[in-house]
């Protein structure tokens, strides 16, 4: 698990200077946004669907202990085995135990944020087990020895030239391969891995309590291969993935793809209920489901931020976020990035590990508008900011200047005359720094703002006067 303090300010500053990254980010997020807009605009009852999806999530989370118990019973009935893990270490050791007991030498993995979260690959490799990521993006990130930078497109931070170079360096391929050739090389390499692996590990998009079915969504077919060919299948899920009824999946599928990739549906959706039946010709002989807490019950315990757990990991908030679009996924320091990362990471790792993240937002609210389950991310961000400032370290880190400034701001906001005076004065004082109607670089302490973004100039006509005039006309 991640234990160091994340460094958003430093990492984002270097991301902003990386021209290659800026190009890759701009291209990708623009395209994601365009296709999402088209897909969600296509259906009439989009808002209705979002409301339904949120309603299901809300009901589930409020009674999640009961649904988890029902899920457990159903999985057992289907011949699967359930394991409970309080934290990442326990989840890793459960999976390692199963691997050891079965003398597993190699594992194929399909994309799973939960396994990234607990650093399962390191745990398995530490025990001498070969682990291969099989999603193309994850495979690229794995051979580059990096981390995924986007929930949906892990290698979004790389241009195709970057990837071609990487393949030449690490896999001895011809130089300057085109995307199709790169894909072909990966297919051939990974086919061998699938056929020889003893164990497949997957994540879980949804787990249906009443039927004991886990749902896995993908486009490539690597999750199907990972859960079909090896003798053992282990699926890892956070507690929040459970959903009560089979038909809930219909609603989630309807909102998920349109938000994520702008498709109506992904190329493959697998519904897996236990191991292969005796009479089935293929499929894994053993099925294990690991249900993991790892900080989620703590999120649950705070009513104000509980809705963080509604997230279905579509990635729409990343693509729309003006901050993510500039700084990219790696700046968020951990596996979850963008607006959802800014609220999830501090809650999962502890607010003292990621005190910058709740502030990595302009609170513009675009994330809330695109979220398929309508998570009020800006509100949760504010709540977390409050928690940061109320923490011992937060108090210590709030400088004397900041405290005075906030007091003065509050005082002027409460006194009409002072407020008008300050704003008229600012209009005059700002002049030396004014450039094309914007304030681009101010002296200390205001430079801490203008180092990263400009500030609109103070208007000559105060809003109050404008308002009076508008009202009169």
């Amino acid at each position, binding site marked *: 698990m991640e234990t160091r303090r994340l460094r958003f300010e430093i990492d984002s500053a270097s991301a902003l200077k990386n021209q290659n990254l800026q190009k*890759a980010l701009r*291209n*990708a997020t623009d395209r*994601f946004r365009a296709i999402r807009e088209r897909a969600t605009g296509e259906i009439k009852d989009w808002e209705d669907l979002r409301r339904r999806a949120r309603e299901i999530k809300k*009901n589930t989370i409020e*009674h*999640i*202990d*009961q*649904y988890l118990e*029902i899920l457990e019973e159903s999985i057992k009935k289907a011949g699967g085995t359930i394991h*409970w*893990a*309080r934290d990442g270490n326990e989840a890793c050791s*459960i999976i390692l135990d199963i691997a050891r007991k079965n003398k597993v030498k190699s594992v194929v993995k399909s994309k799973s944020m939960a396994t990234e979260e607990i650093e399962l690959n390191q745990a398995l490799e530490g025990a001498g087990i070969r682990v291969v990521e099989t*999603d*193309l*993006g994850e495979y*690229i990130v794995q051979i580059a020895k990096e981390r995924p930078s986007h929930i949906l*497109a892990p*290698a979004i931070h790389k241009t*195709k030239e970057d990837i071609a170079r990487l393949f030449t360096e690490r896999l001895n391929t011809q130089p300057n391969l085109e*995307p*199709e050739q790169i*894909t072909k090389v990966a*297919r051939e390499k*990974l086919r061998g891995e699938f056929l020889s692996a003893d164990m497949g590990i997957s994540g879980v998009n949804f787990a249906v309590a009443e039927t004991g079915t886990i749902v896995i969504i993908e*486009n*490539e*077919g*690597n999750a*199907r*291969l990972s859960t079909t060919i090896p003798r053992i299948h282990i699926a890892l899920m956070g507690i929040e993935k459970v959903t*009560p009824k089979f*038909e809930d999946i*219909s609603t989630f599928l*309807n909102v998920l793809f349109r938000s994520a990739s702008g*498709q*109506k*549906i*992904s*190329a*493959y*959706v*697998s*519904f897996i*209920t236990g*191991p*292969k*039946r005796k*009479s*089935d*010709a*293929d*499929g894994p002989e053993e099925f294990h489901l690991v*249900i993991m*807490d790892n900080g989620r*019950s*703590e999120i*649950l315990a705070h009513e104000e931020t509980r809705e963080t757990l509604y997230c279905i990991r579509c990635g729409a908030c990343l693509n729309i976020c003006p901050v993510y679009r500039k700084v990219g996924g790696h700046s968020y320091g951990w596996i979850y990035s963008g607006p959802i990362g800014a609220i999830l990471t501090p809650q999962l790792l502890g607010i003292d590990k990621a005190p910058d993240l709740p502030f990595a937002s302009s609170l513009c609210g675009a994330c809330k508008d695109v979220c398929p389950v309508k998570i009020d991310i800006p509100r949760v961000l504010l709540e977390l900011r409050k928690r940061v400032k109320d923490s011992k370290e937060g108090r210590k880190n709030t400088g004397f200047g900041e405290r005075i400034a906030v007091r003065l701001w509050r005082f002027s906001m409460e006194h009409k005359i002072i407020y008008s005076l300050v704003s008229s004065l600012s209009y005059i004082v700002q002049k030396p720094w004014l450039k094309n109607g914007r304030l681009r670089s101010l002296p200390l302490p205001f430079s801490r703002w203008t180092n990263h973004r400009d500030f609109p100039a103070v208007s000559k006509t105060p809003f109050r006067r404008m308002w009076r005039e508008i009202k009169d006309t």
Partner: protein
Amino acid sequence: MSGDSRKEILRRIKTGLRGPSNTIEEKETIFPPPTDGKWIQQRITEVRERLEEKKWDLINRFIDEITKAGGRVMVGRGEDEIRGFITRLIEEYNAKLLAMWESDLLIGLRNLILDKSLQLASPINKDEMARADIGITGTDFAIAETGTIVLITNETQPRSISLIPPIHIAVMRSNVVVENLDELFFLVKNRSEPTSCMTFITGPSRTADIELNLTLGVHGPKELIVLIYP
């Protein structure tokens, strides 16, 4: 150990949600009892009748959507014509080793293949499957709105046949089409026999992991061909 963790996690959740007093509601209140069987049967009949009425509209919609997703469709008048399509496709792809479901729908085809001295791969043997040129399956359901075929695993319908070979041919009767996801989930939920695996397939295997450039056949089949007949 796992028993302790189970207890501990459930306790954390309960206190987190409902405080230390932890008053639990009855399970029945959160999980409505199963709906009356007669009502369900009636509803199934209604849905089926409605679908039968607009079957060919839905088929047309299905064809549009799966084509957009990169699938290829051929429509035949009957089994003979479908067999003809398959023979042509086997020649087109110069296939030698085939893998096939053993379902009733495809029994006739097996004989045809044996006549042509083609080889059949066994789904139990993964190395043989890895060499298969074409996988031929039936189709249990099709969803018009999304252009999806739905395959349900059972003893005669192994999962790897639609997955491992580079070409997937799915034979489909026109009466398996439903309009949307909601209808599909309703009908599947009320099927009597449970399955270890159900798969939705919409077009060939695809990836966009390199600069969001679409590339087909990264892991699953490069081509999906759906053969429809009444």
